[in-house]
């Protein structure tokens, strides 16, 4: 199944809120705005549903980058969810930086349902960033590594 190249194929998890960013990703799709297949989207109701444990779990299991997309501040479908997510992620990312994880491996981007272009651009940029950082060696459970 896997494509036989030595090229680094990053594993990237994108958490997208159902109301804005998931729809933005749909719009990117229907507008045929390409981004690398390394990005796999998980649908969550709101960016505030994303537990820091999910992010660390992704890294533990071998993800090379994790991005969280939600409605723009002020536009949250649930009014305030992304404000909480913003604080949580700021602190989490700061802690990851503090323990020596390259801070480009995590990102938050606000993408509305109308921003298919932004979604695609963001994913392209993020994948490029992960390529520049290379494989995630600092996080990740040794037992998961083949």
């Amino acid at each position: 199944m896997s494509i036989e190249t030595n090229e680094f194929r990053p594993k990237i998890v994108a958490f997208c809120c159902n109301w804005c960013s998931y729809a933005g990703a749909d719009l990117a799709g229907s507008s045929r705005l390409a981004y690398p297949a390394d990005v796999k989207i998980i649908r969550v109701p709101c960016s505030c549903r994303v537990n820091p444990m999910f992010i660390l779990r992704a890294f533990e299991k071998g993800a090379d980058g994790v991005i969280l997309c939600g409605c723009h501040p002020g536009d949250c479908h649930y009014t305030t969810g992304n404000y909480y997510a913003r604080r949580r992620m700021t602190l989490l990312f700061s802690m990851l930086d503090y323990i020596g994880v390259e801070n480009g491996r995590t990102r938050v981007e606000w993408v509305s349902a109308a921003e298919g272009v932004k979604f695609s651009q963001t994913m392209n940029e993020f994948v490029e960033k992960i390529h520049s950082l290379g494989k995630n060696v600092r996080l990740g459970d040794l037992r998961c590594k083949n």
Partner: protein
Amino acid sequence: MYKIAKENLSALFQMIAGEQELYLPVNNNGQVNFAAWTEGANVDLDTLKSVKSPKDAFFPQSENLYTVTKENKKIKIEPEALKDQNFVVFGMKACDVKGVEVLDKVFLVDPVDTFYAARRAHGTIVALACHEPEETCFCKVFGVDAAEPVADVATWMIDGELYWKALTEKGEALTNAVASLLVDADEAKVEAEKEAIRGIVEKLPYSDLSLDGWNGDVLLDKFNSPVWEELYKPCLACGTCTFVCPTCQCYDIKDYDTGHGVKRYRCWDSCMYSDFTMMAHGNNRTSQMQRFRQRFMHKLVYFPANNDGMYSCVGCGRCVEKCPSALNIVKVIKAFENQGGEM
């Protein structure tokens, strides 16, 4: 009896490590624990007690048992290989060696724990007598002689020289392997050191601790005693005492999904934990008092009842030093002492 100058020890370690794995006390960030010797390791033979006991040389905190992989819908099970290389544990204290003897009672009786047995078969223990025992030590109470460890090789550090005496075949073999670094020595200095150590041990605050009344017959009395209700109260239900203990042998078996398969591993567990021996219906011990009682009843009553009176405590005193709430087995023993033992 041989000896080796302290400054030649690193050559000794290098020589041993050239042939086999070598575990010994290493100071990492101010904490001394047994670790594999590497070039430049900060070996610390002066600190009396490692934080963790060296039991994990034979019974590691976590170890894989087998790996399950899936090919299509077929399942493949691959057991983890048993230890097949020789290794040396250097610098264990008399109490820690006694701790291994306790573990043997658990893991080497039928059904034999093959992982443990393989490690025991391949491990050579070089024990070091306790030069300056401390106030937390009470090994004497459990019949341990800090001055004269019973191991494959017994050693004494006296005035910058390590005195070396092989006691078993394995010990002889190791002695031969490093013979080029050892020089002959007479035993007089060692005898003097032993006397000195024994003298100190007599002066230690816990030296008069009595185990009277702790035997299998008192099981129900002790179990039902109201003393536990008071004793356990400061307990935080952490696993510090169990994890630093040289004799605690409980483990849990869990699965880890690696994404490519499942690794079934075992890891130390603590009877202090609320999910210890959790079963489908729940837990058989529901309160911290019960869990606390279990630990000490096991060490002082159940274990000796099943093992010809051998207590599952060796008096190393690590729990005395490390308990966050200043609880420990000594306080437990004393609490019952004050109860007059007829409870």
